[in-house]
């Protein structure tokens, strides 16, 4: 069981409050992702749950027991670090078995558990190697193996894929997703990459400057962002924001239109503009349009085989039912 509850948790470094009072509940078996720009406090929050960082005030409950002052080792949580944090002087086998050895488990049982974990992570051939002789992806799998063997109440991931190259990152993302499906254990995952958040999470927690901006499922956040920040942060390419008379027409201070919710025509439409850069990805094309008169730059996403080039005149029409409206404070109307 791994229900984690944060109650009025705060954190200050010296006089600087990085996390103002914050409440959050992560249900047992949930895959929660903390996402936000760098410096938003997401890693600090995770480290507070882990027990590696003290709380300035507030309480943390794990499975109904108050764990605020329990040392990290006794919280029953396992953590995977961005830097992998493997023990360089130990073999893969020793690394994975280390938490079990610390728990004074019998050697035969340790071996059996290590081998089960290694099999599921495709690490059987590397058990006697040292971390220095492994690739980045393999190291990350060892770090995950070291977390799995303990059968923790919850897994904590601190930007685990940031050091991997793009192709490997997609692969590991799937592996972690499958791991969650298989184990059904609570996972808390910290990332600054909204794609990781969208693809893996049941519940996304968007943070900015230590404050929770919105909590919800990926599609919730995509379709009903509570404010401009969340609207701009979730979705790729970024949502276009329009202010001024165009927004007032819709009775809002600002309107937001996602690049994929804009019709494109070469002959007629609502806003006339000039093509800047067209990024051809194959399946899609992102067109960056200048001189529309409504915003400095409007990005649209169209199907891959559109033939546009730099300097072409282009007409854009937003889909009216997909327009997000925000008030002067940036809150959803």
């Amino acid at each position: 069981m791994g229900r984690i509850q944060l109650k009025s948790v705060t954190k200050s470094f010296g006089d600087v409050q990085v996390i103002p009072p914050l409440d959050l509940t992560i249900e047992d078996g949930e895959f929660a992702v903390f996402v936000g720009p760098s410096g938003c406090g997401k890693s600090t929050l995770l480290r507070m749950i882990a027990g590696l960082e003290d709380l300035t005030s507030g309480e943390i409950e794990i499975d109904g027991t108050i764990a605020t002052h329990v040392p990290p080792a006794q919280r029953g949580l396992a953590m995977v670090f961005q830097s992998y944090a493997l023990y360089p002087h130990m073999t893969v086998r020793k690394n994975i078995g280390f938490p079990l050895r610390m728990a004074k488990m019998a050697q035969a049982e340790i071996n059996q558990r290590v081998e089960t974990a290694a099999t599921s992570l495709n690490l059987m051939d590397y058990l006697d190697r040292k971390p220095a002789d492994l690739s980045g992806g393999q190291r990350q799998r060892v770090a995950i193996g070291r977390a799995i063997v303990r059968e923790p109440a919850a897994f904590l991931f601190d930007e685990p894929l940031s050091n991997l190259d793009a192709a490997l990152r997609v692969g590991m993302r799937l592996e972690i997703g499958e791991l969650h499906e298989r184990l059904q254990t609570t996972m808390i995952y910290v990332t600054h990459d909204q794609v990781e958040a969208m693809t893996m999470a049941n519940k996304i927690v968007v943070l900015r400057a230590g404050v929770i901006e919105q909590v919800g499922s990926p599609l919730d956040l995509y379709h009903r962002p509570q404010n401009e920040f969340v609207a701009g942060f979730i979705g790729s390419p970024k949502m276009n924001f329009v202010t001024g008379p165009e927004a007032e027409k819709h009775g809002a201070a600002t309107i937001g239109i996602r690049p994929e919710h804009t019709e494109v025509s070469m002959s007629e439409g609502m806003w006339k503009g000039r093509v800047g850069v067209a990024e051809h990805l194959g399946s899609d094309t992102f067109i960056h349009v200048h001189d529309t008169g409504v915003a400095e730059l409007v990005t649209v996403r169209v199907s891959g085989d559109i033939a546009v080039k730099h300097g072409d005149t282009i007409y854009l029409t937003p889909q009216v039912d997909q327009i997000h409206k925000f008030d002067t404070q940036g809150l959803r109307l």
Partner: protein
Amino acid sequence: MAIVAKSSRFSKFGRPVLAWGVGLMFFFPIFWMMLTSFKTDADAVKPEHLIWFTPTFENYLNMTENYDYWRFARNSVITAVLATAFTLCVGIPCAYAMAFNPSRSTKDVLMWMLSTKMLPAAAVLYPMTFITKSAGLFDTHFLIILVLSLINLPIVVWMLFTYFKEIPKDIIEAGQMDGVNTWGEIKEILIPLAWGGIASTALLCFIFCWNEAYWTVRLTTTDAATLSKLIEGNRAPEGLFFGRLSAVSAAAVGPIVILGWFCQKQLVQGLTFGAVK
């Protein structure tokens, strides 16, 4: 054409010459001491026997037969080994705490520790002598081990601190998550990872203990007297007995020079304070 850096004439010829020059300069006193130790006291002061003389083992034989060299050597080994061990036992946990759980005053504490090295030893000679005599510790192994440990503790903590700082904090934190207690962190993670640094620190500390002369000469008479005391004892006010003095000195520094020769790599690493990996 691409512009590439060219090595200057200095780095090709000048640098090796300079290096050899400095090396020879440092080696010369040891060489001269070794040479003199094989001369008779009479030959040692005669200009005509500066280089050409009839070598003799008389000084060395004299030393073991008349001065009980082995007792002094044994005391040197006992005090240097135990003082090094004690210093590490205190220094490792201390440096660990400062490297991985620093408080606001950690930097000040480090500076303060170093500042104790700035106090001239002579300033506390009288209090030290009176206190140790009245406490009945004068001329005991215990006292010498304690003094050597305390003298070297600041430098040992500094060195270990620098080495420990190079260990990523994540690894220590991973250990905490994996259920290791503080002692386990030191034993299972810190010591294996910083082994090279700890070894060179221990080696340097041992050398400093072995060569320490100010306190070992003044706080001992016979029971705990080390090789430094033996050298001191052979120093005649008239400046005679150079042969004998050289033999004693050679026998005193010999073991440490040999040890240093075999551990050159660790020593260089230690002296550069972990800057060279």
